[in-house]
């Protein structure tokens, strides 16, 4: 089977949905972060796929955007984990159900 654009889009859609499901349904803050990472990975996959099947696959634009977004994802993970630790130290829990200080 030759890889087509549709195939990659289906995979990235599946990846995004799994990530969204994880982010919505898990109660542990770290799993939510993992879910967000999955969604980012899906977006990266889309970038790469659209670049690869674009009329100009020799310009490394898509890869550069993806690398840029991976770097941002790494920074985001560092900040996110630091936040989780800070929240844990403050509230002694990482269960997001119990964290409702955003209540309006």
């Amino acid at each position, binding site marked *: 089977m030759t890889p087509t654009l549709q195939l990659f889009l289906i995979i990235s859609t599946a990846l995004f949905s799994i990530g*969204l499901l994880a982010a919505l349904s898990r109660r542990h803050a770290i799993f*939510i972060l993992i879910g967000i990472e999955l969604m980012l990975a899906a977006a990266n996959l889309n970038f790469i796929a659209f670049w690869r099947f674009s009329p100009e696959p020799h310009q490394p634009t898509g*890869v550069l955007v993806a690398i840029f977004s991976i770097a941002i994802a790494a920074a985001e993970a560092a900040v996110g984990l630091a936040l989780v630790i800070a929240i844990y130290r403050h509230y002694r829990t990482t269960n*997001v159900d119990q*964290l409702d200080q*955003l*209540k309006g």
Partner: protein
Amino acid sequence: MSSWIVSNLWLIPAVPLAASLVVLSLTNSARSISVWLAIVGQIVAFVLAITAFLPTLQMPGFRAVHNFTWFTFGDQALRIGWMLDPLAAAMMVMITLVGLCIFVFSVGYMAGDKNITRFFAYLSFFSGAMLGVVISNSLLLLFVSWELVGLASYLLIGFWIDRPSAAAAAKKAFITTRIGDLGFFLGMLWLYHNSGTLLFYDQGRGCLEGTGLLAIGASATFIALLIFCGAVGKSGQFPLHVWLPDAMEGPTPVSALIHAATMVAAGVFLIARVYSLFSLGAVNGVTPSLTVVVSVGVVTALMASLIALAQFDIKRILAYSTVSQLGLMMVSLGVGGVAAGIMHLIAHGFFKALLFLGAGSVIHGLHHEQDIRKMGGLRWIMPVTFLTYAVGMMNLSGVPFFFSGGWTKEEILHRSAHWPVSPLPHYLMLAGVILTALYMTRQMIYIFFGSARNTDFQSVRSAEFHSAAAATTRDISVGRKGQRPVFRAHESPRVMTMPLIVLALCSILFFLVLTPAWPWLHAYLNGEPAHVDFGLLIQPMLFLSLALVAGGIGFGWLIYRNVTESDPLARAQPGVFRFLENKMWFDEIYEHTVIALSRMLSRKADWLDRYFWDGLVRLFAGLGQAFGALSKGFDDHGINAGVDETTAGTRGFGRLIAAAHSGQIQAYLAAIAIGMLLLLVLYAWLG
């Protein structure tokens, strides 16, 4: 046949890796399946390694590569590949054989551990990653496998995750080796910048041959030294050796497999693999980078054997002996004896795995007692362990005749004697030989000779912390009435003694291909045909090393003969002994320099964050607040009254909306997702 195995060489690391993934997905209830899967994976890898080994025997200097394009990026294609040559083939056979013995031993040693599934998954993972290092024909592929090996080491050192000391040791190992790997990575980038390829051999265009090597030119010294940083970290060389003794927190089979036989050897292997970079532009076999390798190796070898003299933990003594032997191999590579170094690496792989498994057997038999002061007299209780351990000890001490370690060590001494730069390393290494014989004699006497210094092993119970293996009921016999139950020392089960016997036989029979009379392995690694010449057997170096080893053992016997709980050396030279027992205070020095510096920097960053940036934010917040107060005053006294009436309806609606704001971030997230979905539907609908 030979072309099939070359193009499918990837199977050798892939099989254990696949086994590891399958085992990892099994639950703890599938114990026997997972153990069998891991062992079968290892057996398959061993058979494939032999299949790969056979074609390399056909002609001297056999080398076959299989390269392919991994991906293209712009107009650059990144190519990786694997290679089969004597170095890779010999390493593969050693790793898979030693690995197999250790896997089998682990079945007995870890029998009572509830996480045995995870253990075997990690072991398989490690084995696959290490085989990946060995077959790589690309520095990038080697680096990837190298990091996987580091990860496996981290996971296995911290295997008993509920012990804080194990977690700390795992972190220390990971971070310390990462420092070296940073150098390795920079060296790799520099190499790619200069030569434009990371393939080692590529029909004359690789970075270790022909035009690729010429393109590197004068910066080869710096690249080689950066790559050497990685080897220093992984192989526990001075000054990054501090992680290796702490890594003994892992289960003993892990110490045997990773921190003695294979992983720490990866650094030595790396230097041997990219040796062309080190020797580029050599005058009389000497380059600046090789001189650095020799210096680091000598310092490491001597320092570690001195520290080993004053340790009481059975595994730590062996850990320091590993550090010192790795230093010896580095010296050998540095003075130009690549084949001699690799020979010692392979022989060391066998006998150090044997020693560590023997130590594991002792620890198992004594219910997790590791302090050699509390052992003694075990030679009658654990005869198989004693005999095999003695074989390992003879190998490590460098006794020639029937012990492979003696011949390889003598070869290294022989090489270093002719180093043109300075005779100092040679003399220091001769001192190292005496020290090695001395501390191994000390350890043997402490463990196996004399009388049992802790007959009932009652105090052991408090030292026992993990692995229900120690507490199988048949080991506990109830003492006389009114006494607490006591543990008895016992010989280990067959599943543990068999690997010991196999390894002991390997490290003895291995000498047949090592002696100067028929230096088959040496010639094989160098790609030359081997000749039989019994005249070469008698050499001055043989007598010198024999005399030194005999002196070391004899001296050791003299001073440790009637050993008690206090060490004779500690009584004679308490200050020196304390210096050595505390590992020359390396940990303390690092604690007060590097770690203190990084702590100070983090404190400064914290302060900056807290007071400077926070201050700025607060300043703006204050401005906003002041403006708000002003505005509020204007509102209150100006336009308030009339508006209140008209906003009553809005307030009611606002309360309604506020109910939706539960503070649950996942509810918000769901709202965003639904909103996105609605927008998408709208978009699709409207075209």
